[in-house]
């Protein structure tokens, strides 16, 4: 453990607060900063047109959010699997160590 269980819970609560507080207390469009960067270029360069376009674009905002959710789900699934495997292996190792210790006693 690199932080205590209590600190761990606290860290997660702070992350949630960091997301929720702006949503509740800040009035804003909540558009993406990546798109604002693109908009800043377009604003400073009159007549700016991107010289290349994405080969494929999600046909709607719904499909785009689906794909972002899929991306996050794949990542979260893998992390959950790995943590489960690691902890399962550790438990097994502990159990075996205990088992062999009692075996030696006999």
């Amino acid at each position, binding site marked *: *453990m*690199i*932080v205590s269980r209590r*600190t*761990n819970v606290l*860290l*997660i609560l*702070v*992350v949630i607060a*960091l*997301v929720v*507080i*702006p*949503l509740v207390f*800040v*009035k*804003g*469009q*909540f*558009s*993406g*900063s*990546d*798109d*604002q*960067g*693109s908009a*800043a*270029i377009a604003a*400073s*360069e009159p007549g700016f047109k*991107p*010289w*290349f*376009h*994405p*080969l*494929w*674009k*999600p046909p709607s905002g719904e499909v*785009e959010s689906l*794909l*972002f*959710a899929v*991306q*996050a789900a*794949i*990542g*979260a*699934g*893998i*992390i959950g699997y*790995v*943590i489960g*495997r*690691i*902890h399962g292996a*550790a*438990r097994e190792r502990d159990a075996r160590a205990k088992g062999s210790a009692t075996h030696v006693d006999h």
Partner: protein
Amino acid sequence: MHIMEGFLPPAHCIAWGAASAPFVVHGAIKLRRVMREQPQMRLTLAASGAFCFVLSALKMPSVTGSCSHPTGTGLGAVLFGPQVMAVLGAIVLLFQALLLAHGGLTTLGANIFSMAIVGPWVAYGVWRLCRSLNLSIAVALFMGAALGDLATYVTTSVELALAYPDAASGFTGAFLKFVGVFFLTQVPLAIAEGLLTVVVMNALASRTNLLQELGLIRSKTA
């Protein structure tokens, strides 16, 4: 930090691509070596890549009334070294460019340079510095991940300012303009990224000898 498809002039695309390519190749060699020499680390390696996958998909609201996303590259940079993250970050960026029309193929080199090279190297450097100052693993990890996140967005601002210097104030004026777009929005997200990195490292490292095996800490009791 994604520069959108077609938003950098062709010469800049080629230059950033050329700058990023050696890091990605070197990272791929290092990645293969880790997989061959430490096969027990494959799961942790997968988790590091997956963390990057999750965090760069999360567009979170910020105090400025805009949304942005963390990068998730600090965890893997600390665990396996920054070189490996050039590959894992490139995979994430390629996924987003092809399937989400977020970022782009022409701007892939520039986006790899900011998110998968500068971010991880800064995260790793800050982690090492904090550890040499005897700060705890949790604090060093938090600082590394948070500052690596911010460094990525500063790099994006540099890339955009080089391509589109201000007519009156040149590179500096344009840099300040783009930093203005990204930086303040990113601060709370960088903090969130730092905290989440500690939480995930805690889950990966508790009950295991992960940190000892990777040589990140020496004694078992530390």
